[in-house]
C-alpha cells in the first residue's frame, strides 16, 4: 500500500508481533474459545459453596429498614435499558458502569465494549473506528455525536478521536447504533451512529478526584465538582489532564504517538417551570498529539418543553471551534480551523392514540480556513469556504396491533451546498409477540456527503524526474455516496438474567468515492499525470452481530459479542490510492469479545476481558488475541483503588496500517496502570 501523497514510497515493513508464552501457537479462534471456556468454568464448580453471597431476596429485604434498603447495592437484571429491547434497530448502550469496570481510560477504547464496533489503534493517539466496514483513521460512514453536537469533521469526513477525551466519569451512556440512522440523524450516518451523552448535572453533585499512572497512561488526573444552582438547578465543572506515552511505530523511532491533553468544561441543568428544562454546557481543550497541535472550544444550549405527556419540544443551539495543525510529512503542514454553528428543533406528538410522530428541522453553518506551509502541497482550493446544511425530517410510529406490532415510516430531506437535495427514507417494522421476544426489520437509504478534501484538493503527490508531476485533483461535482441497507434483528430474553441480541444486514453501496488516473498531459514524457477523485465503486456488505449477556450468578456477569463481516468492493479503478481513500479491506471478518465482571467480597471486583480480532488484508495486519484485566477495591464507599493491565497476552501487537497521510502504524504495547478515584 502506498502513501497517497507519495505514490512511489513503500509502506514500512511490518513485523509479525511475537506471541506470548501464555498462548502457544494455535488457531486464534480456538485459543480464545479455550480461554473463554476456562474463565466460564473455572468459577462454576465453586458456586454451590459460594451460594447467594450477600444477595438478598425480596423476602429478606422486606425485613430491612428503609435506611438499610437505601444502602443496598442495586443491579438491574438486563444490562440493556428497557427501551433497547424493543428498538427497531441494532442498538447497544454502553453505560457509565460498563466503562468504569472495563478499566479503559480513553473514549475510543471504551467503544470496544459495544458489539460490532471495530476499534483499531493506529498509534498512541490515532484510531480507526468503524461499524460494518470501511474503517480508516477517518471512517467516513460513521456519525459520532456528543450531547447532540456532531464530532464528525467534514474536512476528511471522520472524527479526530484525539480531541474528544471528555471525563469518562461524567459520561452517562454511549449509544451505539449499527446500521444507518440517516432519517433521525442525517447524512453520514451510513454504517452507524455513536451518540455520547454526558450525565445530568443533578447526577454529578459533589466532587470527584481521579489520579492514574502507569506505562502507557503515564499520568492522568481529573477533577469535577457539582453544586446546586438556585432553587431548581445544578451545575458542575471539570478539568482533566493526561500525558500518554509514545508507542513507537513498526520500525522507526518516532514521537508520532506521544499525546498530552488539557481540558476543562461545565454543564448546568435547570428546571425553569414544571414543563421547561434548560441545559447549558461547554468545553475547551488543548492537545498535543504527536506532531499535531489541536485546540478548540464549544458551547451548547438546549431548551426542552414537555407540553404534555405525548408532546415534547426541544430546541438546541451550539457553536464549535476546532483548530488542528498537523504535520503531513517532513516538510509539509496542514493547518485547519473550523467554526460550526448549528440549530436544531425537534417536536414529538401523538395525533390519535395509534400514532406517534417526531419531526424536526435543522440548519448548520460551517466555515473553514485552511493553510499549508508550502503554497501548493497539499492545497485546497479555495482555502476558505462557508458551507450551509439544511435538513428536515418526519417519522411516524404507527401501532398496527396494540402493544405488539408497529410500523415506522419516515424520511429526511437534506440540502448540502456540494450535493444538493438528498432524500433519506426508512421503513421499519417492529413485532413483539411476547415480552421475551422482539423481531424487527428495516430498509433504509443513507448518504455520505463528499468531504472538503475530496471536493477541493489540488496537490502534488509525486514527481517522476525529469518532468512528470503527479497531481491529485479533487472534484467539486462529486455525488454523495449512497447506501440501501436491508436489516433484520431478533432479541430474546428467556430469563431475566439472559439476553440474546442478533442483527443481520445486507448493505448495497453505490457511488463510493475513490481515485482514477486522468489523461496524461504535455506529450512524451508527459509533464502532468492527474489522479482524479471520482466515484469509482460499488460494494456489497453482508454480515451480522450476535451478543449474549448472561448473569449466571449474582456475582458474575458475562458479555459475549461476535460479529461477522463480508465486504466486497468492485471498482473501476486500478490505482492503489482508490482503495486507500475508500478504506477497503481494512476491517476484520471475525471479531469476538468475552467480558466477565466478577464481584468479590470485601468490596473488590474484578474484570477479565478477552478479545479476538481477525487479520486485515488491506494493510496486512495479522489477527490477534488480547486481554485486559482490572481489579478494584473500595476500602470505604467514597474511595476506589484499581489496578489495570491492558493488552496482556503479548508484549505488543499491530492493529492497523498507516493512516491516510502515510503515518506508519505503531504496535500496541502491553501496559499497566494504577488509579485512585475519590468522591467527596
Amino acid at each position, binding site marked *: 500500500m502506498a502513501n497517497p501523497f507519495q505514490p512511489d514510497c513503500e509502506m514500512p515493513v511490518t513485523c509479525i508481533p511475537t506471541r506470548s508464552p501464555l498462548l502457544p501457537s494455535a488457531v486464534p479462534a480456538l485459543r480464545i474459545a479455550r480461554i473463554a471456556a476456562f474463565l466460564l468454568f473455572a468459577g462454576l464448580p465453586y458456586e454451590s459453596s459460594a451460594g447467594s453471597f450477600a444477595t438478598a431476596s425480596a423476602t429478606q*429485604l*422486606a425485613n430491612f429498614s428503609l435506611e438499610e434498603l437505601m444502602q443496598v447495592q442495586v443491579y438491574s437484571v438486563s444490562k440493556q435499558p428497557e427501551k433497547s429491547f424493543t428498538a427497531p434497530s441494532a442498538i447497544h448502550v454502553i453505560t457509565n458502569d460498563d466503562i468504569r469496570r472495563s478499566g479503559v481510560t480513553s473514549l475510543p477504547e471504551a467503544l470496544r465494549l459495544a458489539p460490532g464496533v471495530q476499534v483499531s489503534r493506529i498509534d498512541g493517539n490515532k484510531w480507526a473506528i468503524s461499524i460494518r466496514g470501511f474503517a480508516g483513521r477517518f471512517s467516513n460512514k460513521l456519525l459520532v455525536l456528543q450531547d447532540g453536537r456532531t464530532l464528525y469533521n467534514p474536512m476528511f469526513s471522520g472524527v479526530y478521536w484525539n480531541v474528544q477525551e471528555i471525563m469518562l466519569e461524567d459520561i452517562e451512556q454511549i449509544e451505539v447504533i449499527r446500521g444507518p440512522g440517516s432519517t433521525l440523524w442525517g447524512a453520514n450516518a451510513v454504517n452507524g451512529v455513536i451518540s455520547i451523552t454526558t450525565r445530568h448535572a443533578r447526577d454529578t453533585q459533589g466532587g470527584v478526584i481521579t489520579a492514574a499512572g502507569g506505562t502507557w497512561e503515564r499520568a492522568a488526573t481529573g477533577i469535577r465538582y457539582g453544586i446546586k444552582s438556585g432553587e431548581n438547578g445544578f451545575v458542575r465543572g471539570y478539568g482533566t489532564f493526561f500525558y500518554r506515552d509514545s508507542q513507537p511505530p513498526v520500525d522507526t523511532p518516532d514521537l508520532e504517538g506521544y499525546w498530552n491533553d488539557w481540558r476543562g468544561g461545565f454543564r448546568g441543568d435547570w428546571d425553569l417551570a*414544571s414543563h421547561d428544562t434548560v441545559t447549558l454546557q461547554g468545553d475547551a481543550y488543548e492537545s498535543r498529539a504527536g506532531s499535531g497541535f489541536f485546540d478548540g472550544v464549544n458551547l451548547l444550549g438546549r431548551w426542552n418543553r414537555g407540553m404534555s405527556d405525548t408532546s415534547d419540544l426541544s430546541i438546541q443551539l451550539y457553536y464549535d471551534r476546532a483548530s488542528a495543525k498537523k504535520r503531513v510529512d517532513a516538510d509539509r503542514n496542514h493547518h485547519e480551523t473550523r467554526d460550526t454553528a448549528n440549530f436544531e428543533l425537534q417536536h414529538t406528538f401523538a395525533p390519535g*392514540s395509534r400514532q406517534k410522530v417526531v419531526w424536526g428541522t435543522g440548519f448548520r453553518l460551517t466555515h473553514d480556513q485552511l493553510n499549508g506551509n508550502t503554497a501548493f502541497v497539499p492545497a485546497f482550493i479555495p482555502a476558505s469556504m462557508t458551507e450551509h446544511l439544511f435538513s428536515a425530517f418526519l417519522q411516524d410510529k404507527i401501532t398496527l396491533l396494540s402493544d405488539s406490532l408497529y410500523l415506522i415510516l419516515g424520511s429526511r430531506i437534506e440540502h448540502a451546498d456540494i450535493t444538493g437535495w438528498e432524500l433519506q427514507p426508512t421503513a421499519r417494522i417492529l413485532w413483539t409477540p411476547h415480552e421475551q421476544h422482539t423481531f424487527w426489520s428495516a430498509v433504509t437509504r443513507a448518504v455520505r456527503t463528499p468531504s472538503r478534501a475530496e471536493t477541493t484538493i489540488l496537490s502534488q503527490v509525486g514527481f517522476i524526474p525529469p518532468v512528470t508531476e503527479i497531481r491529485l485533483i479533487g472534484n467539486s461535482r462529486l455525488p454523495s455516496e449512497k447506501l440501501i441497507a436491508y436489516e433484520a434483528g431478533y432479541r430474546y430474553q428467556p430469563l431475566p438474567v439472559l439476553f440474546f441480541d442478533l442483527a443481520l444486514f445486507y448493505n448495497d453501496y453505490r457511488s463510493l468515492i475513490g481515485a482514477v488516473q486522468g489523461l496524461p498531459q504535455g506529450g512524451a514524457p508527459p509533464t502532468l499525470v492527474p489522479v482524479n477523485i471520482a466515484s469509482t465503486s460499488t460494494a456489497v456488505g453482508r454480515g451480522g452481530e450476535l451478543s449474549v449477556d448472561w448473569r449466571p450468578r449474582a456475582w458474575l456477569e458475562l458479555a459475549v459479542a461476535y460479529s461477522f463481516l463480508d465486504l466486497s468492493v468492485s471498482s473501476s479503478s486500478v490505482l492503489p490510492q482508490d482503495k486507500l481513500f475508500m478504506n477497503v479491506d481494512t476491517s476484520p471478518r471475525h471479531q469476538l469479545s468475552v467480558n466477565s465482571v466478577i*464481584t468479590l*467480597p470485601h468490596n473488590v471486583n474484578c474484570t*477479565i476481558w478477552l478479545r479476538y480480532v481477525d487479520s486485515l488484508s488491506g494493510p496486512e495486519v495479522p489477527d490477534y488475541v488480547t486481554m485486559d484485566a482490572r481489579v478494584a477495591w473500595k476500602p470505604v464507599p467514597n474511595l476506589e483503588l484499581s489496578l489495570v493491565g491492558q493488552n*496482556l497476552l503479548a508484549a505488543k501487537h499491530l492493529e492497523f496500517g498507516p493512516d491516510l497521510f502515510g503515518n506508519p502504524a505503531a504496535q500496541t504495547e502491553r501496559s499497566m496502570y494504577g488509579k485512585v478515584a475519590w468522591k467527596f
Partner: protein
Amino acid sequence: MEILKKITGFLLEGFLTAALLLAPMSASAALDSPTRAVEHDVKAAFIYNFTKFITWPPASFENNSTPFRACIVEDMPLIEALESLTQKSTKGRQFQVIRFGSGVEAGMCHLLFIGESTERSLAKKIIASVGNSPVLTVGDYPAFATQGGIVRFIPFDGRLTFEINLEASRRSGLEISSKLLNLAKIVRGQP
C-alpha cells in the same frame, strides 16, 4: 526499561493467575460486604415498607379483614417479587398483589405502581383516573412527579433512593409519616 517490562509482565501473569483461581473461592467468604440485590426485589421491599409509614383513611377499607391491595401495572418481575411477600401482613392486613389491567379500577387499589416500561400516554391515563382517591402512586420514571405521581424511585450511585411529591400526597388525603418524609427527597410538583 527492558527489565521494568519483564517485571511488569511477570507481576501481571501472577496477578491474573491469582485472580482467576482465588476469585470464585473467596466468594463464599462474603460476610461484611454490602448487600446486593436485583432491582425489582429492592423495589418490592421498598413498596412493602412504605405501607408501614403511611396511613390510609379508614374508609378505604371495607372492613377489618379487607386486604391491603397493591396494584402493579405491567411490570411482571416486580409482581413476582411482591408475590413472594404476600405471606406477610401490613398493619394487621393481608398484603395482596394485583396485576393492574381490565376489570381493575385505580380506586380499588391502595397502592398503584406504574413503571418505566409502561407507555407514557397509558401511564398518564392511569394516574389521571386515580384523581384524588387515597391511592399511593409509585413510579420510577422522570416525568412521574410532574404527571401527579406521589413517590418516585431514583437510582443514585448504584442504590435506590426516592422522592415524594408533597402536593400530590396532600391531594390524595394520605398521611405520610415524618420518618418517611425525612428520608425522601421532597419535590413540590405542579398543582
